[in-house]
């Protein structure tokens, strides 16, 4: 009976089973990826669920687990302060995205004219992106301050009637945030469009030129439509930057004058960490997350569908 084990049937099964080396090779990628996967599952998705859970609890100074249902959301939407933050976000993000895209596209088109010194000009436009928003915010705060910045300088130069006090004016302060943010990000958008422009097939452009297309028509009908993926990426990156914008507002206006430039991110921080209203803070974070999801899901859906 024992002899039969070495029979062909058994040997055949051993041959189909991959040896240790092959098995290890197929396992290595999974092994290497698993720690980072575990970390992401816990620290990104785990904490997202934790925040969602907290938003339904009576947490104040520390997390606590008394279930209160939708009370925090109810309170949140009755707060004037939250209304201001949301309407500021709408104004800020729409202007920010539109201006960054338009300026970025124009800069990219101009730089793409095979001009001399492009390699010097390109980084000049791109460098603001290398600064942190805190630096941008502080620099623009000084520049825009009527007492020491632009207005003061113009007065010193003799242009006494010059006035530019948006940063101190509650109706206009949010536009100064747009101004600083556009200055910072449009160079980056330019780089994305430039990459897109470089990827366009030259043959097609030559063919169009031979058919007598003007330069304007060339851009309007052929080049810009082909930049669709670049537009989409720019939109997604800019919109999530806009929704989570916190440091720029803190450095530039500190949410003021009054509460005129408060945005959801500054709202979330102050409610969660300084006002001991963690439940309301968490519910505002969830609303911000849902806003980002509402933008990302259609984007991911369309991207993944195209790949197939």
């Amino acid at each position, binding site marked *: 009976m024992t002899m039969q084990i070495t029979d062909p049937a058994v040997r055949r099964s051993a041959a189909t089973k991959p040896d240790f080396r092959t098995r290890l090779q197929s396992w290595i990628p999974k092994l290497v990826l698993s720690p980072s996967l575990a970390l992401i599952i816990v620290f990104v998705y785990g904490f997202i669920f934790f925040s969602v859970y907290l938003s339904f609890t009576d947490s104040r100074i520390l997390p606590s687990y008394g279930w209160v249902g939708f009370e925090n959301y109810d309170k949140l939407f009755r707060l004037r302060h939250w209304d201001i933050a949301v309407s500021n976000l709408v104004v800020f993000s729409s202007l920010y995205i539109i201006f960054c895209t338009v300026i970025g596209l124009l800069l990219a088109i101009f730089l793409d004219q095979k001009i001399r010194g492009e390699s010097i000009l390109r980084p000049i436009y791109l460098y603001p992106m290398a600064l942190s928003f805190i630096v941008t915010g502080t620099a623009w705060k000084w520049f825009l301050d009527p007492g020491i910045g632009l207005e003061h300088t113009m007065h010193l130069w003799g242009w006494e009637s010059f006035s530019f006090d948006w940063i*101190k004016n509650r109706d206009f302060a949010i536009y100064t945030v747009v101004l600083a943010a556009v200055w910072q990000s449009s160079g980056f958008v330019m780089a994305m469009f430039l990459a897109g422009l470089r990827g366009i097939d030259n043959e097609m452009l030559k063919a169009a030129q031979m058919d007598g297309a003007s330069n304007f028509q060339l851009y309007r009908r052929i080049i810009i439509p082909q930049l669709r993926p670049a537009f989409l990426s720019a939109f997604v990156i800019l919109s999530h930057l806009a929704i989570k914008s916190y440091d720029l507002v803190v450095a530039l206006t500190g949410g003021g*004058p009054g509460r005129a430039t408060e945005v959801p991110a500054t709202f979330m921080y102050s409610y969660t960490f300084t*006002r001991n209203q963690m439940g309301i803070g968490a519910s505002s974070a969830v609303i911000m997350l849902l806003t980002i999801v509402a933008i990302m899901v259609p984007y991911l859906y369309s991207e993944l569908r195209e790949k197939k």
Partner: protein
Amino acid sequence: MKIFKNTMSKILVGTVTTSALLSVHTAIAEPSVEVMHFWTSGGEAAALSAVRQKVIEAGVEWEDAPVAGGGGDNAKTVLQARIAAGNPPTAMLMLGQNIIDWSKEGLLGDVDAVAAANGWDAALPQAVKDFTKIEGHYVSAPTNVHRTDMIWASKLAFDAIGADFPKTWTEFNALAPKFLEAGILPLAHGGQAWQEVYMFEAVALGVGGADFYKSALVELKEESLRSDTMVAVFKQLAELRAMVDENAPGRDWNLATAMVINGQAAMQIMGDWAKGEFTNAGLAAGDDFACIPVPKKVGDGFVYLVNSLSFFDQKDADRKAGQETLAAAIMDPAVQISFNQSKGAIPARKDLDLSALDSCAQATASDLAETDLAGQAVPTFAGTHAAPAAIVGAATDAITEFFNSDVSAEEGAALLAESILLAL
């Protein structure tokens, strides 16, 4: 859900402890205190070093854990993380209701033995005890008391128009056009939300009196919040709103103080931490600048803010011994005096000889003693003594909105009442 909850808190605790372990590099084998605070400016750091010296002399190791910025907001965030990790600091600089909150969470220990041995009960005014002796236990040791209802006036500016310091709000308001005529800004103001709340509380006491202040801002009674007195408070705030310059929004408080120092502006309404700016600029109290309480329409009054180091419960005997040494050092009469020479406040003890302090501090100390006995000393609202942070935050939104717009006093008062009642 329960399993999920437990795992989440374990993970949270795990991460924070790991980082805490990494940051602690000194081996602790003798009595020690770890003091977490946000006193990082020149005068504040000098003040704290008076305590530190005394503690080190007593053979206790001092671990300094400063968290700069945000008027303590940043330190509070760090504290929350440390507590979630089960590793609270030995002592922590905290304000007002926060002490009461942490005490209610059962996280604070006490130094009752030191307090009894050194007679703290007799040495401290009731106002200070309200925020250090919680439910019969001393959980906190007070370093100093600040007064927040103060006007800082430039002697230079008042001499320029030949006027006396205002004793009533009518006089105060009548000064503004005269200063403007002389090319002096009547009121230097830093347009940040928290500064506007300090200004509001000074006006609330000045116009409404101590009883109104208590019922509206401490007891948060709806009828007081919606009363005509509150409208009168906002009317006076509207007067002040008209006296500040257009560049005020976002200005730091010390820059506003600098405007008074160089005579560009006549007055600033600010807590007595502003005094340090004047003395650092080489100005003498009484001769170059004056510190006067805001005018009081009804009776007398005093808005106080207590600074104290609170003691988190420790199991380790060495750390517990460290806490007791620290508590005794803070309340040491000589330390209280030298601490407050640097801090610009007044000592928390009422039984000290104040001849080493300047005239402003001496006047403030005698005012506190009087108003404390008469029950007219009220806790600061802006400094979260009178009400919890959630309420103060809600009120801040309303006050700063009023101050930075031109809505009427009636609307401002209504907005404040609604915001506070919604946050209750």
